[in-house]
C-alpha cells in the first residue's frame, strides 16, 4: 500500500539561519503597488482560513510600505509555499473603516498588512 509522505521539514530547511519572511526574498517578482498608492481591499471568499480582517473589506487606504515577500496566509495555512506574494502595509483613516467614528478624532488611523491578492488600485 503506497503512502504519500508529506515533507514537513522543507520550511525549516529553507528558513534556518535566514529567517521567515526573509527566506522568501526575491521570489514574488516585481511589486505591483508602491508607497503612496491608493488601494481598495477586495472582498474575496475566505473559506477555511484568512488573515484579512473583515473590517477592512471594501475600504480604501494608502500603501505606506512594501514590507516583505511571503506566501499568503491563505496558502501557507495549507503548506502551499509555491507562489509568494508581496505584502504591503496599508494605512486607513478610522472614519473610512467605521462611518460613525467621531469627526473630532478625524486624524485617527489604523495600519495593517495585506498580501497583494487582496489589493486593487483605486
Amino acid at each position, binding site marked *: 500500500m503506497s503512502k504519500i509522505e508529506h515533507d*514537513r521539514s522543507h520550511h*525549516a530547511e529553507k528558513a534556518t539561519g535566514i*529567517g*521567515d*519572511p526573509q527566506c522568501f526574498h526575491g521570489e514574488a517578482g516585481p511589486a505591483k503597488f508602491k508607497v503612496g498608492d491608493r488601494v481598495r481591499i477586495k472582498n474575496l471568499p475566505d473559506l477555511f482560513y484568512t488573515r484579512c480582517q473583515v473590517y477592512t473589506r471594501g475600504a480604501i487606504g494608502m500603501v505606506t510600505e512594501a*514590507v516583505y515577500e*511571503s506566501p499568503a496566509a491563505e496558502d501557507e495555512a495549507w503548506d502551499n509555499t509555491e507562489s509568494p506574494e508581496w505584502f504591503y502595509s496599508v494605512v486607513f483613516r478610522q472614519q473610512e473603516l467605521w462611518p460613525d467614528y467621531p469627526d473630532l478624532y478625524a486624524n485617527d488611523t489604523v*495600519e495593517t498588512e495585506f498580501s497583494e491578492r487582496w489589493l486593487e488600485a483605486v
Partner: protein
Amino acid sequence: MSDEHQHPPAPMVDEVSDFEVLEAAVRELAIEKGLFSAEDHRRWTEYVHTLGPLPAARLVAKAWLDPAYKELAVRDGVKASLDVGVDWINSPPTGFGTPSDYCNLRVLADTPTVKHVVVCTLCSCYPRPILGQSPEWYRTPNYRRRLVRWPRQVLAEFGLQLDPAIEIRVADSNQKTRYIVLPVRPEGTEGWSEEQLAEIVTRDCLIGVAVPKPGVTANTKRPVRPAVHPVDHHH
C-alpha cells in the same frame, strides 16, 4: 439537609479552556508522532519564560540618546535588536522564529503629533523575542475587538487621555510583522543615562497603552469593572 441554596462547590482549579485542551491534544499527538520530543517542548517552554521586555526598553533608551541608532531601529528593527542582545533569526528553538515569532520587527516611532498603539485583532501576535510573553489583557477579545474600533476609550481605561489633535495610529499585527512602540522621550529626563531612561520604558509603553513618565517604572493596574450583564455560571 435542605435543598435551598444548593450551589455546586467552587472548583479546586480554574476551568481549563477548550483551547488549553486543544493545545494539550495537539502537543501529545506531535510528541507521539515524533515531530518533537517532550524534552524539546520542555526546553522551549522554559526558554520563552526567560524572555521579558527589558531588551525593548533598552532599545528605546538607546534610540532616545543616539539619533543614528533610532534611524536604524525604525529602518531595520531586527538588526537594531542585535545591539540589545536579541537575535530574532538565530534564537532557539528553531533558528528561524516560530509561526508566531516571525523575524520582522517594526519599531513604530511616536512623534508629538502621532501616537502608536499595537493590537492583534485576529489572535494575539506579540513580539515575544523582545517583549516576552504578552499580558493577559492583550489576549482578551475585549481589548482586541475594542482597541481597533474605540482606541481613545480603551486608552482612557489605561489612564491615557490624548488631545484630539494627536493622531492615534493603531497597528493591527495581522501578518508577519511584529511591532513595538518607540514613545516620545518625556520632559524631565534631561541628562539621564541609558539605564535611567530604560527604567521608565515599561511594557505598557512598548505596546503603546501608556507613555513613559519620570518616576513611573511599573505598569499600572488596569481597572476591572463589573460586567453590565454578568454571566451566571450556576444555571
